[in-house]
Structure formats: structure tokens, C-alpha cells
């Protein structure tokens, strides 16, 4: 058992008496009550647990808390800037992307990492970046649409 100070969504958070091999997913959910990050498979196959570690998308179900050290973690709860939604979150609402919605936090986190590196992705770029995220309801067409929309609106805002 060990104690960690984690940098999550810009905040320094203490977790105490946790097993070093505990996946970040379960630290977020059980220890920190941040349940937006979802458990789907436990073996990095479905992407429902996607968060950012230093800006890169990782599957938190397979990322031990002991490996995080000083890295900055961003979860779905930290994606908006206060009450200002991330362009992707707004596009997800505008296009009514979710059906059951369970995978969508992970989808948005994967998409956010994509847009950070590639502000105007092609369909193929989107397919490649999103291939690790399963949507059992099959909302892929809308996810593509929402990513394009968010990319365009962000470009207009910054351009």
C-alpha cells in the first residue's frame, strides 16, 4: 500500500493507502469519486476509460497509479474550462451523439487528444484516432460528424 499525490485536472489530489498496481481508472472512480471515466473491459480494448496523461490518450484501466508520478492527468470532468464546454462537448450535444452514452466520455477524450495534435483531421485521421474506442450502440457516424464540426468551429474561433 502506498500514498500518492496526483495532478488531476490541474488540482493536486492525495490518495492514501492504495495498492501501487491499482489502475488509474479505479483510483479515479473509487478513491476520488470521479466516475465520468468508465470501466468497460479492463484490458485496454474498448477505450471507455480513456483519459489524458500529459496530453496523450491512455487507457486508464491498464495504467497503474504508481506509473503516473508527476504527470498531468486530465479526465472528462476536467475537459471544460469552468462552465465553458470544450468544443467537442458542445458538438456532442448539438449533434445528439449519444445513445446509451456510456462510451462517450472515452470517445470525447480520444477526440480531444486528436484535435490537440491535428486541428483539422480528415475522415481517415479520425478513423485512425478513434479506432480504439468501441461504441456498442453504433454512434460512429455521429462521432465523426461531431469531431469535424468541433474542429471547424474551433478553427473559426481561433482563426
Amino acid at each position, binding site marked *: *500500500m502506498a500514498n500518492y499525490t496526483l495532478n488531476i485536472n490541474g488540482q493536486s489530489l492525495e490518495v492514501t493507502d*492504495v*495498492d501501487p498496481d*491499482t*489502475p488509474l481508472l*479505479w483510483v479515479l*472512480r*473509487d*478513491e476520488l469519486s*470521479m*466516475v*465520468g*471515466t*468508465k*470501466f*468497460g*473491459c*479492463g*484490458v485496454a*480494448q*474498448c477505450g*471507455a476509460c480513456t483519459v489524458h496523461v500529459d496530453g496523450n490518450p491512455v487507457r486508464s484501466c491498464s495504467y497503474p497509479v504508481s506509473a503516473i508520478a508527476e504527470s498531468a492527468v486530465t*479526465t*472528462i*470532468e476536467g*475537459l*471544460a474550462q469552468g462552465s465553458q*464546454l470544450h468544443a*467537442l*462537448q458542445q458538438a*456532442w*450535444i*448539438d449533434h*445528439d*451523439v*449519444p*445513445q*446509451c*452514452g*456510456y*462510451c*462517450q*466520455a472515452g470517445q*470525447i477524450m480520444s477526440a480531444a487528444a486528436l484535435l490537440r495534435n491535428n486541428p483539422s483531421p480528415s475522415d481517415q485521421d*479520425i*478513423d*485512425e484516432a*478513434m*479506432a480504439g*474506442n*468501441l*461504441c*456498442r*450502440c*453504433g*454512434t*460512429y*457516424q*455521429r462521432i*465523426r460528424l461531431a469531431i469535424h464540426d468541433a474542429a471547424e468551429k474551433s478553427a473559426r474561433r481561433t482563426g
Partner: protein
Amino acid sequence: MTQIHSDKHESLTDYFDSLMQEFDANPSPELQHPISLSRRGFMKLAGITGGGLVLGFSIDTPKALANVSAEHAQFNAYVQVKPDGSIIIQAKNPEIGQGVKTALPMIVAEELDAAWEEVEVVQSPIDESIYGRQVAGGSRSIPANWVILREAGATVRAMLVSAAAARFNVPVAELRTESSRVIHGASGRSIHYGELAEEAAKLDTPSSVELKARSQYRLLGKRITGVDNLDLVTGKPLFGIDQQFDNMSYAVYQKCPAVGGKVISANLDHIKSLKGVKDAFILEGNGRTDELMPGVAIVADSTWAAIKAKRALKIEWDESDASKDSWSAFTQQAKQIAEQAPERPLSRSGNLDAAMSTEGNKSIEAFYSHDFVLHAPLEPQNTTALSKADGSIEIWAPTQTPGRALNGVANTLGITQDQITLHQIRAGGGFGRRLTNDPVCEAAAIARRVDGPVKLQWTREDDTQHDFNRVGGFHVMKGAVNKDGKMVAYSDHLISFTENGRSPVSGGNLRMTGYPEDACSNVLMGETLLPLKITCGAFRAPASNTIAWAQQSFIAELAHAAERDQCEFLLETLAALPEPRGEMLMNKYRAIETVKLAAEKAGWGRELPNGRGLGIAFYYSHFGHVAQVAEVSVDANRKVTIHNVTVSADVGPIINRSTSENLLEGAVVDGISTMMGLTVDFENGRIQQENFHQYPILRMPKTPKIAVHFIESNYHPTGLGEPGLPPLAPAVGNAIFAASGIRPRTMPLSKEGFTI
């Protein structure tokens, strides 16, 4: 609500049979039997006028609406108005991704003329004495609640108008409503519902009310984003798995991998010595697969501690009564049975054998098979339960059948339903998996041994190995066309499975809609059933989702045998059906229009390059008429590219256009997943797959472009969760044949060497 668990020895088949009877029952009896409007004392028939449906009724209010403050003006079980004028609308049915938490309140809001942006939707309590059937299944939420919810909204609107008439001292007839306001056009005065609510709620419920004509709709038919979407995209707690309480424990449960196995012993002392483990114990179970089967529970102080301990668990099983089922053995058996006549003939007309052997007729035979598949909702099964000192229990469960969950828990714990408080929680996918409440019963039984709240969490491996699978099976197809290219013989012999020795397992029956058996003069439809222990259940469009594959593929084979265009042949066979017998049944005119629309939108008949083809299929299920056209390429290595899928549907008027399109897009993706690569193999009673690396659900790169078109007829509106799935597999199969000349007959197609 039928009490279905009075008999402890009732089989799983009986459970699903009664559930399916509920689903198949006409959801709108008033269409054909107006006098039955007095159901549940909800309404009394007042009369039908020339101007529209006029109904009298009294709507009860729930004894306790836990989520409604006493300060709110309470009009009925569905509508309350808050002091600030915003309107609460209760969403009565479980939300599993089919969009009813938005769509059902939209129906109320339309008749209420509520400003949608001022509406707050809340999940209603479970109380079937007030709300009627509260189930997510059978695509029934829309058709079964259409009239009731319109009345619930229209009544409140009428009361608000009456209150405004008194306030303004003008006749009711001079008032109109819009965006949560009552407006007196002549004087230019208007008043918000919130200012009228208190006095309006004191008025008697009107004895009759007129419902809007379709041309007056302002909200229905629009694209309305889901009411939970903001919470979903910001990561707020919404799902069963998100329930958290102080001092909560976390549990896992291990059952025998072969269903029916009992625990002889387990290394409980070792498990209890592990870090974070609070307790470990054996549950004997009650022998019901849909309630509590034997297993070992581990209770820990975190999910991770529980999962780690589960990996260290060693259990000795008594498998003397456990499943020994083998899919490879069943496949061998089925090939032999294919030579024989069905054991259970279901429908026979004319003389099939004579028509097959008549000189000049062209007769064909084909053997289709489909594997078992999982539901695999992305949120693994879970339930949180709190057992209390007085013997009562409080439960938070993502279930499709909360009413049946109450039955199951009462039966499992030996308590009465009034000792159970059940909260319905948004579910991360259902597809039929959460029609059974085994995780709810397990959590309840574990909670009895735990001090404080406990969340039972299944792993993905548990979900994969203890599902109620979409049953596999084999269709032996026979048919003939005559010299004129007309269908003159059709036979489907389904080799399926039985758990109780009497009737097919859920989804394993040869469900008949009238097509094509009523469109052909020489017909034999029947079943042969093999004994099975692996648990099966309803999977999105049960039975239809696999019958459509064999039927619509084989109709295309007959068209090919007749050297005719597949679409033209399909339309001809549909036109040969008898006249429609009722509104909530298959209707050949609706079917034909649906097929024509899909064909037209997909550009049926256009020239395509070599290796590319179009395929069409139609199926009627769950009151929905749906056709699909797939455009597909196949290369020399059987690699399939599905370029696009065109969907047309007639489900009457559209409630929420956004959800409706989304559900059909999702059905296409689901259909491609299950037809191309998904399978559950089992040997010696054990499911061979464990997790998604062995279960290739379709991912974004392989998703085709999907176009959805609605007929928007004036028939009673019906649901869209299910009817979009069945036509996909045969449409793609027919397109593969058109593109390559290879006729796929095994689902998943990966078993014939196809890849995607």
C-alpha cells in the same frame, strides 16, 4: 403486471415466454377495441367527435413522488409545475440508450404546449399501479404510451387554460397556448403557466379533452438532443456503475463457467487474508439462472481489491448437473437433421414436395446457420444494494425490467415486494441483456451479508461468460419458382434449441409475420429442437434478427433462380400477400412503399463496377416496416467493404427525429458486427470467449455511410429500438452475392473466410 414468479420451478423459457407475450400484445388496444379504454381505471370513454378523439379520464397521482417537492403544483403522475414556472415531466420507462427519457416527455410537452427549454425531465419512481408497464423492451415504449402521454399533457393544458380564463374573465374559446404561456389574442394579454399553476392544479381534471391534430405539432418530429447529454459529456454520475455512498463496499461474484455447476469448496480463508478483502462466502442460490445461481462472493474495500482477489479464487465445482453443451457437436447434429422433416410443423399449405418436383419448376435448397452471440452492453452488469435492519432492502439497478426485478429480489430473498425500494438508473446499453435481473438478485443476496451499501460489479469476463445469449441455429430452406418466375414453394425448417423440453428457448422460435408464407401456395414451416443448457435470452429483435437473414437471403436466391431482379421479385412476393388484417400487423402496402423508398434512395439498378454490388432486404418486426439497401465491394480474398447502407422505415409519425435516425444508424452498425465477426463458441458447457479481443465489435474505420429515410405515415407511431436490425444482414449478404457471385450462408461470415 403479471406475477410471473409465483412458481419457483418456472423455467427460464417461461420467464421469457411471458415477457415476449407482453411484447407481442397489441400495445394500443384502443385502435381496434375502443371500449377497452377503461384499462387500469385510467380513463373512461367519453365519445368520438368529428373533430378528433375526445376522451374523458382521471389520472391518478403516485402516492409518493420522491423527487417532487411539496411546493410544486402537481397535476398528475406525469406533470408538475415548479414555483418558478418550469415544468417537471416524469419519464416513466428505463433509459437504456433508446432515447425514451427524452421522447416520452416530448409527447407530454407537445400536448401541453410547454416550452421545451423550460422542461425538466426526471426519471419517475417505479410504480406500475400508476404508470402501467415500466419496461424497456419490445420497442413498446412509444406505441404503448402514445395516447396516455398525450392525454396527460392535454389535460394539464386544459386546466391551465381554464385558470387563465377565470383570471382574464374571458371564455376559454378565446384563449390559445404556446411556449408555456396562455395567450388572449384579442386583448394582447398573455400569462406564463407558472403564474397559473397553483390555481390550475386545484381545478377538477376535465372530463374530456381534444388532442392536437398532427398538423399542429410544434415539437414532435423535430431533432431534440437527449436530456442527459450535458451530464453525459461532462462525466456526471448517471449510470448504475456510478452509484456511490459513504462506507460502500465493493463485491464481485464468481459463478461456475458451465451453467448449473455448484460450489463444492473454495479457498475462502486465503481470499479473506488478501489486502482489502472484507469477506468471502459461498451462496447456494435458488437454482434459477435469472435470479441466483451458486457461486462465491468476495466483498472488499475497493473494486480493484475485489477484482484482484477474484483472480486468486480457486473453486472446486460439482458439474454433475452442469451444461456440457458443444457448438461443434450441435453443428454436426443439425446437418443430419437437415435431411429430415421438422419435428414441429407450424404452418403447412398446399403440397411442398409436389411443387418442388413439378417439371418446369426450378427448385433450390440451402442450409443457413447463425452462431450464438452476446449482448455485450458496454456497461458491465452491476447493482448497488443496501440491506436494512428491518429486513427491507434498497436497490439501485440499471435494469430493463424494474417490475420483474422486484419479483426476482422478493423471490431470492423470501421477502415481499413492499420491502424493496428499487431505483431505476440509466443503463449503459441493454439490447435485451438487462431483461433478466440476475445481477440485481445477486447484489441483493450479497447485501444481506454486508453491513452498509455494497456495489456488485461484474467484470467484462463475467458479462461474456454469463450472458443470456442470442441463440444460434440452422435454417433448412427450400423453395421453387415456376416457368413464369413466380414463387410457388417456400419452406423454412428451423433447427433450434429447447431448455424446458417443450418449447424453443427465447429467440429460438420460428416467428411468423405472414410473410412469405401467406404469399405462397405451397408452404411448410416448422422447427426441430435440440436440448440446451447454455442460457439464452432476447436479443434486439429476438428471433426476427436471424429469421430475416435466412428468409431474405433465400428470397434473393429464388429471385436469382428465376433470373429476375432481386428487388422486383421481392416486391412481387410482398404484393401477393393478403389484405392487411389490422393496424398493428404487417401491412403489404406499407412494406412495398418502404422497399421502393430504400431502392429509390440507394439508386437501385444503376451500373456498378466489377466486384461491387447492391443488395436489398425487408423485414417487419415490432410493428416497424424496414427496408435496407447495402452497397458492397468484395475482393478476391473475400475482403468485404461496405460502402454505404440506405435505410427506409415506416413507423408512423416520428417523435424525435434525432433519436430515430440514431437508432437506425446504430442498428446498421450492430447488424454488421453480428453478421461479420461475432460469435460465442462453447465446448463442454464453457463459453470460449472472455473479452473484446476475442469479440470484434465493429469499430469506426469499418463503419459505412448510413442514410436514413422515414415514410412518416399516419399510422400509430411505433418504436425503433429493434426493427432496424433484422434487414441488415440479408441486405449485405445479398450485396455480397451481387458483387462476387458467392452466396454467404453462415453467420458470422468470418466462418466462411470473409473479412471486413
